[in-house]
């Protein structure tokens, strides 16, 4: 009897795992199946031409460029803030310090704050500072979203670092600041993974940039101009009643999915490299 139960549940469990995997394949497959026919070079190399939203010529280069600019800007801001922070809680504060744990806890909570709330807060902040919906606003808001993600994954790899190296450095008479500089080099693969993961998480996020970045058909040339983003571009094209435009939304979805796939796999590659270094 108990062996029968065992067998039944094992089958159910394998079934659940297979279904989850199937759903993933189904999602990616659907996007490719629907979008592949409309995916052309023009899509990635041109900005929307006249009548783009009526099905005429053009591409989504504006959105790709906008997304890249925003994520790059946000990345710079968040690296400047998160690298020192993670170094501080790991190397400056004593092991198991209450302060470090409080920071980790607030990072966990910041990580859980929905992106739409960051978007609303970013918008309020921009109104307060007198910035219009622009590249700058998008960068600031996305930086807020990216920071907890990056800090947490960086913190995780930093904690895995063995304590021998810091001890050796300190006993040689280096200051903690000098020690951190050396350790940071050791952490490079981990940092790369953290950055790639963070990019993957935020490049597809639409809710934060919805009201902070605006939308435009051109490639922004300064921080004060509005910018298009890939997820919003997909969303707006999908809302069109014209069929060609909808098809192009699916093609844009392929572009976004491929970007995510590349980021995810390269993050995986770098993290496996990191664990090799660790020995």
């Amino acid at each position: 009897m108990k062996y029968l139960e065992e067998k039944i549940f094992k089958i159910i469990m394998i079934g659940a795992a297979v279904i989850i995997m199937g759903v993933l394949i189904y999602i990616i497959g659907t996007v490719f199946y629907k979008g592949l026919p409309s995916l052309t070079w023009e899509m990635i190399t041109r900005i929307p031409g006249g009548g783009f939203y009526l099905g005429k010529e053009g591409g989504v280069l504006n959105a790709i460029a906008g997304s890249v600019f925003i994520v790059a800007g946000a990345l710079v801001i968040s690296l400047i803030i998160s690298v020192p922070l993670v170094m501080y809680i790991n190397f400056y504060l004593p092991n198991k310090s209450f302060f470090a744990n409080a920071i980790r806890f607030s990072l966990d909570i910041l990580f859980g704050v929905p992106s739409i709330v960051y978007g609303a807060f970013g918008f309020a902040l921009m109104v307060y500072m007198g910035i219009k919906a622009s590249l700058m606003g998008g960068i600031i808001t996305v930086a807020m979203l990216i920071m907890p993600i990056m800090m947490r994954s960086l913190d995780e790899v930093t904690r895995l670092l063995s304590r021998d190296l810091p001890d050796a450095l300190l006993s040689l008479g280096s200051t903690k600041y000098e020690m951190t500089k050396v350790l940071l080099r050791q952490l490079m693969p981990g940092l790369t993974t953290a950055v790639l993961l963070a990019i993957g998480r935020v490049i597809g996020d639409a809710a934060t940039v919805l009201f902070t970045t605006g939308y435009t058909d051109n490639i922004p040339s300064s921080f004060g101009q509005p910018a298009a983003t890939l997820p919003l571009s997909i969303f707006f094209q999908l809302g069109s009643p014209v069929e060609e435009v909808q098809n192009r939304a699916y093609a844009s979805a392929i572009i976004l999915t491929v970007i995510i796939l590349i980021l995810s796999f390269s993050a995986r590659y770098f993290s496996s490299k990191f664990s090799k270094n660790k020995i």
Partner: protein
Amino acid sequence: MRKIRFVKDITARHIMLGIAIFTILFLLVIGFSLFFKALPIMKEKNLWLLLTSANWKPFKGDFGFLPYIISTIYVSLIAIIIALPFSILTSIFLNSYASRSIRRFFEPVVDLLSGIPPVIYGVWGTLTIVPLISSKIAPKFVDFSTGYTVLAGGIVLAIMIIPLLISIMTEVFRSIPREMTDASLSMGATKWQTIKKVILRKSFPGIIAATVLALSRAFGETMAVLMVCGNIAQIPHSFFDACYPLPALIANNYGEMLSMPNYESALMLAAFLLFIIVILFNGLSRFTLNQIEKKYQFS
């Protein structure tokens, strides 16, 4: 020469401390600024009335949040109910049955599922789930449904929270001491009996915490749900009615709100509500999970 080194060290230390304090205060900053933005409408109207009225007519100055709150709860609950069995079964499978190679094969699956952007989920939902509901599932229960329904939102959301649930639950299951399961197995219990009587019972708090965490994630999910759930401001009466969750409300109305009195304030109140609920849920579950992790480290 020596002095400069120490000055550098001390300066760096102070800058880092500043950043650390800023990080902790950042939550408060977000909370307070949303609160102050929401204050005008709370002054004008009774908060309780705002939350329990179903009357949403911004043109007349009526802001009743009830339809949105109920929609959010419905969609999230459906998502949890669908996602929970799948995630528990899969994480048990990965933890107790799967070989190392299967586990390593499954890691990127979970990674990718959590990495796929909400918009893509939304596109997929409108392409597959919505037509499926309107043509296959709904006709068995109701006369007519567009497919853009509570159920569609719930299904899409369920898939989006499964990776979160799986990754936390595998951590929780891993934290159970090996001696415990070994003891049960050596007494002649089958693997499933051990799972049922030892692992599941022992990790119950962790599972609850993971569920609460996933629920808070579900509350805040915007784009994907917005694209499949219909966005009609009504209290949904069945799974096959359209609904309008809070994040979708904020996202959809941002452009036009500045022209109407109190509209911005009302939307900020929605964001504030979302923020508070998510913070509470997150705080509680993270605390529980940290507690579990701590026990595991010392035992």
